[in-house]
């Protein structure tokens, strides 16, 4: 049997472990999908309020959110089957976003329908949940820039809580593109790059 120096052996183990952990845990597709869907919803809501045509609201959000969940479930199920690895970090991340998604759906529908709070507070509340999601994602993903996105969501939440108004729909739309779609695109590119590198 070959004899190997203990120190070298530990270095070897550490290197293999580090390399293996590098496998991407987030492909960013869900961020892009939800960012686009919610931005469409926010803009349509804004213009329907401006034009006093609120009938569109009866089907707009249930359709968008329903579509979002269906696509997400199909997309993530396919990805899970095809995935070559399963990591604890990826599992935690999936549950963080499933939990956040359910919380945001409840705030968006139950909160506004029950009249527990004004519809204008939906955006800052959702902004807070997204901030927590990004903070955890950044830590698990091992990228500080992802965690820093949470600051954008928190600042946006404070602004929308302090200065309520119709403009928050436009602000939230911009935040969706800036802090959800664009990071999603970066993550997707990174994911593709890592797949090629493997």
């Amino acid at each position: 049997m070959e004899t190997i120096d203990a120190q070298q052996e530990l270095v070897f183990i550490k290197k293999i472990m580090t390399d293996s952990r590098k496998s991407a845990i987030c492909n960013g597709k869900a961020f892009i999908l939800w960012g686009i869907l919610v931005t469409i919803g926010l803009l349509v809501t804004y213009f329907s309020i401006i034009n006093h045509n609120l009938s569109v609201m009866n089907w707009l959000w249930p359709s968008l959110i329903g579509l979002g969940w269906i696509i997400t479930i199909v997309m993530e199920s396919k990805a899970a089957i095809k995935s070559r690895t399963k990591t604890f970090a990826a599992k935690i991340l999936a549950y963080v976003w499933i939990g956040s998604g359910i919380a945001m759906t409840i705030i968006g529908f139950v909160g506004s329908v029950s009249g527990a709070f004004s519809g204008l507070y939906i955006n800052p509340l959702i902004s807070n949940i997204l901030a927590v999601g990004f903070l955890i994602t950044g830590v698990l993903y091992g990228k500080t820039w992802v965690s820093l996105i949470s600051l954008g969501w928190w600042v946006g939440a404070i602004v929308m809580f302090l200065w309520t108004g119709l403009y928050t729909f436009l602000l939230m739309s911009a935040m969706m593109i800036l802090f959800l779609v664009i990071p999603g695109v970066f993550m997707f590119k990174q994911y593709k790059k890592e797949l090629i590198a493997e």
Partner: protein
Amino acid sequence: MKEFDYHQIDDVIHSRIRLAIMSVLISIDEADFIFLREKVKTTDGNLSTHLKKLEDAGYVAVNKSFVNRKPISRYMLTQKGRKAFEIYVEHLENLIKKK
């Protein structure tokens, strides 16, 4: 520098390829054959042989399924394997401390 005293350590793990397999699987929950092959950098035949040894020792469990009619084997460490790996690393650390 002192060399490994392999009488004290686990013979099943004490092979470059098996150690590499265990190191990959300790850092992720589950990996398929292709992922392991790429990380361990070995041939299919060699990897199969070493995986079989780890399976026989009860250190690794395999889950076989079909994806798009293609057979997929996913490997994971068992509790016994995890414990054995921890003891193995502990031995290495003790060896270094003694130096």
